[in-house]
């Protein structure tokens, strides 16, 4: 698609650009170029999901899709800078290997099967309660209270928000499932 330039370049050279190295060679597209940070619908301030330095990130959104993530110059910790992982955050949230659907594997199965989210949650709730009931310990040998199950374990939290950790700890503790851990101990 030849560029729709008003005048051919070699004509525009006749003015101040005889060698044709500067403005006469600039195409209409280049002239009107704008970064997607300006053409985005909105930008939100976020924090990098990788390490614990806590660098500030600016997330740009266009048509309800993350189109750019870069450093947040306002952050006193990172001053707009990022490491290779932080700089790759957009490629991480839009990774080609990211999963968007629930997948289920039946015992002894050889393939993943699909399952809708609601059914999965129902099945999980059933299993939690079943295992909890089967492995409930009310007291120890000295009659002191245990009121717990070690039949259910949970792992994970260092990559989750503090609020998520809070609800998980609150729920599992109320369930009596005391054996929960995360990467802080790895």
């Amino acid at each position, binding site marked *: 698609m030849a560029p729709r330039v008003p005048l*051919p370049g*070699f004509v525009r050279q006749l003015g101040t650009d005889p060698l*044709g190295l500067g403005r006469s060679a600039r195409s209409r597209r280049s002239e009107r170029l704008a970064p997607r940070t300006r053409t985005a619908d909105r930008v939100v301030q976020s924090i990098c999901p990788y390490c614990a330095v806590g660098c500030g990130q600016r997330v740009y959104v266009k048509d309800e899709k993350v189109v750019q993530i870069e450093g947040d110059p306002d952050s006193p910790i990172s001053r707009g800078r990022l490491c290779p992982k932080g700089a790759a955050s957009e490629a991480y949230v839009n990774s080609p290997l990211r999963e968007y659907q629930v997948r289920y594997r039946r015992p002894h199965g050889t393939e993943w099967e699909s399952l809708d989210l609601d059914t999965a949650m129902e099945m999980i709730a059933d299993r939690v309660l079943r295992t909890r009931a089967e492995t409930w310990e009310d007291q120890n040998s000295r009659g002191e209270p245990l009121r717990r199950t070690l039949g259910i374990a949970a792992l994970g939290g260092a990559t989750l928000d503090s609020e998520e950790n809070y609800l998980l700890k609150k729920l599992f503790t109320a369930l009596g499932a005391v054996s929960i851990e995360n990467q802080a101990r790895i």
Partner: protein
Amino acid sequence: MSATTGATRPPQRSYHGNPVIKEPIWKPEIPWYFFTGGLGGGSAALAYLAELGGHEQLARRAWPIALGGIGVSPLLLISDLGVPHRFLNMLRMFKVTSPMSVGSWLLVAGGATTTVAATNALTGRLAGPARLAKPAAALVGLPISTYTAALIAQTAVPAWHGARRELPAIFAAGAAASAGAAATIATPVRHAAPARRVALAGAAAELLSVQAMEQWLGAVGEPYHVEQAGTYARAARALTVGGALLIGAAGARSRVAAAVGGGMVLAGAVCERWSVFKAGLQSARDPKYVVGPQRERVDGGRGHGASRRALDGRVAEGAR
């Protein structure tokens, strides 16, 4: 994998042995175009001169050869482009600093004039325009034969840029040899004397100019003798000499000898272009050709001051 003992080595003079500049990315169409461009341009000149000299039969054969050469050239160039459908962008600008830009316009001019000339030569029509087109085609054909040398010389490839004064001569000689040889093949012996003379002159000039270049270049010219470039160079020399001798000895009497001799000279010209092309790739690939001469210039005080040590005080001087 760098073959050395490990990632750590005493301060070495190249970065893990990697090239410093990039090899040209052109495909085989380009060395072939060097040949067809020269053939086209040379034949146009030959055809016009033949007419001037009253060699009607010769001219009637040389013009179609010229058209063939000039005609196939754009096809080769367009096929080499990364984005062929944007070939018209070649005429977007006219840049004197770019031999390829100037060359593109020359090719347009050459193409048009040679088409008119050849049509006239073959069909007699367009006599009016042909009166102007023929000399124009001849005139334009000359730079078309040599601008390609300027093109490759205007790169960072040491073997090419170093030979910028000699390469045009080689390409000109090559054009002459090709034009002469082609005409010798295409024209009955009795009308082909001038063609034979051009073929012989061209061949001789080609051999001499290649020799001169290699003398002059010294170490930078090493790629021309080694590996593929060397093989093509030796083939070129053998074919050119053999062809010339055959034409010289029997070309006047035997159409077969003329044809075979002409073919050999043509093949010689093609090989010479391929030798020049391959030498460029080899020269860019090995950091020693790029870094060696530059380091010598710098250590010999003839460098351009790309690097300034703080301690030797030249920073202050460089920062006037």
